[in-house]
């Protein structure tokens, strides 16, 4: 194989270069230079993100284990944008004295998980998918348990790693059944042998439950709230946006390719999971007081909406799912970003603490307002179009009841999103959160997410551009 052929996996190679540079810097830099490491990592990752938009040849490597298509390139770029915003948001938190000497660790772990997600997306067989999934999960457990002194962080880490291991075990059992019935683990060879025999349906169910854990669909969502609450706020944001987005993309491509002949079987499953996920996520979000827990249940409900696009099985459905993830990246990172700034500056995390937030921090509360409106799907911002297109994709295929249930749930979700808005704007408080000054990188990150929330809704070119790369079942 020629050396130039390796350039097909350019995004992995450049990410690996970033990780290695940071590793060398970790060895030779003084522990007190936290700011310098953060700036260097952000700069390097910005370069990597820009490089990701330069097109490369598509093709396969390692006998079909790794494949690069325009679609995987696009998905990786969506993830890159999210991670870039996220590491800029984390800068204020990482520069705190408590994180002295552990800053590059954060970047190494987070970029390794991103690498795992790249391999998941580009996998051409189940072995590569499994390796990518584990590379995306194991460092994340270490990140969840990042605050070594905090019991909550430890508890979240323990819950996450044990449940992640179990769910990947269940998924592997599904893969082993697929291997047993088809004699291969390569997607291209498995597709031809997939039929509706009981063994393969069981394999598909096991496989779906493994991925459902990562996306936190309802029967497999129990870890979500605890882990999001216990993890550092920025890591919770990463879990809810990047990790979930990548797994959704994988679910989408696998259901559309490998399992496409079993549509009748997974349609029923996805239908049930969508209804349950949206409803239960919303109902539990209603009663939350902790901001991180509240956002966790809201992200469960959002994952349910994504299933509407997947179940349609069309080219349009695929486009809307990718578009919704892009919008969701901006809006959820906006909301989590403000929550992280508030928590790191004042240690306050409950919704009640946000009373009178508008009086002291008008700009931050406006960002929160926009993000929550986008999550709820209120018209002028991008979240509305994301939800609208998802509903349209499902309705186009005749899933009217599903769309009606989802619509009713959108109304319920308005209540709890507006509860936060009411606390911020209407309620008065004796001791509101004081004026918060955040550093430049964090402000840029927040500005980028706001720009994204507005721009992704206003410029329809974004949708058309995504539509170019997608395909239907």
């Amino acid at each position, binding site marked *: 194989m020629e050396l130039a052929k390796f350039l097909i996996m350019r995004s992995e190679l450049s990410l690996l270069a970033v990780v290695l540079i940071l590793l060398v810097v970790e060895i030779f830099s003084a522990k007190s230079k936290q700011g310098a490491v953060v700036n260097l990592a952000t700069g390097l990752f910005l370069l990597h993100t820009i490089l990701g938009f330069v097109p490369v040849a598509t093709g396969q490597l390692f006998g079909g284990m790794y494949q690069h298509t325009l679609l995987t390139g696009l998905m990786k770029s969506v993830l890159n944008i999210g991670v870039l915003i996220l590491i800029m948001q984390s800068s204020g938190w990482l520069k705190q004295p408590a994180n002295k000497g552990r800053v590059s660790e954060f970047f190494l772990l987070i970029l390794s998980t991103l690498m795992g997600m790249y391999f998941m997306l580009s996998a051409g067989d189940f072995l590569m998918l499994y390796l990518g999934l584990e590379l995306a999960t194991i460092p994340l457990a*270490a990140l969840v348990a990042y605050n070594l002194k905090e019991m909550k962080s430890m508890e979240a880490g323990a819950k996450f790693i044990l449940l992640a291991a179990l769910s*990947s075990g269940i998924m592997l059992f599904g*893969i082993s059944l697929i291997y047993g019935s088809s004699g291969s683990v390569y997607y291209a060879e498995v597709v031809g042998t997939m039929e509706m025999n009981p063994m393969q349906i069981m394999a598909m169910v096991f496989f779906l439950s493994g991925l459902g854990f990562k996306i936190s669909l309802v029967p497999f969502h129990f870890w979500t709230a605890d882990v999001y609450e216990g993890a550092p706020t920025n890591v919770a944001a990463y879990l809810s946006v990047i990790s979930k987005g990548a797994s959704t993309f994988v679910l989408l491509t696998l259901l559309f390719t490998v399992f496409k002949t079993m549509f009748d079987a997974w349609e029923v499953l996805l239908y049930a999971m969508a209804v349950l996920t949206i409803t239960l996520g919303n109902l539990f979000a209603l009663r939350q007081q902790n901001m991180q827990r509240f956002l966790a249940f809201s992200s469960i409900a959002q994952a349910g909406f994504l299933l509407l696009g997947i179940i349609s099985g069309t080219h349009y459905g695929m486009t809307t799912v990718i578009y919704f993830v892009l919008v969701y990246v901006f809006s959820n990172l906006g909301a989590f970003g403000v929550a992280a700034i508030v928590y790191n500056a004042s240690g306050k995390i409950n919704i009640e603490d946000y009373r009178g937030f508008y009086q002291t921090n008008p700009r931050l509360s406006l960002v929160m307002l926009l993000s929550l409106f986008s999550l709820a799907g209120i018209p002028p911002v991008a979240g509305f179009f994301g939800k609208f297109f998802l509903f349209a994709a499902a309705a186009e295929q005749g899933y009217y009841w599903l769309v009606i249930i989802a619509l009713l749930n959108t109304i319920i979700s308005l209540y709890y999103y507006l509860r936060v808005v009411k606390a911020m704007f209407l309620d008065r408080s004796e001791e509101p959160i004081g004026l918060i000054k955040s550093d430049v990188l964090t402000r840029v990150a927040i500005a980028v997410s706001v720009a994204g929330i507005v721009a992704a809704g206003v410029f329809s070119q974004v949708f058309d551009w995504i539509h170019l790369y997608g395909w239907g079942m």
Partner: protein
Amino acid sequence: MIEGIGVFDILVVSTAMFFIGIYGFLVRKNLITILMSVELVLNAVNINFVVFNKYLYPDLLQGYMFSLFAIGIAAAEAAVAIAIILNVYRQMKGIDVEHVDTMKY
């Protein structure tokens, strides 16, 4: 191939192991034992891969390769899990699941 034992018999064993692992995961109280139950699940999968490879597709290697990778990754997972459990022990002086229930509902 083992004389007199068919693929079905071994699959019964591995499936039993899989569900024993899941049962252990649900009922055990000690975090280390929960981790052991997960390992049982992963090993059931390894048996499956090897058996399918040996009995059904003897001239291919994919199943063996997959089980090798699965063993390696299970070790990595156990390393991180035990590190976290150790830290739980340092703070709570115990690794029962009752020690990690501060967050609920």
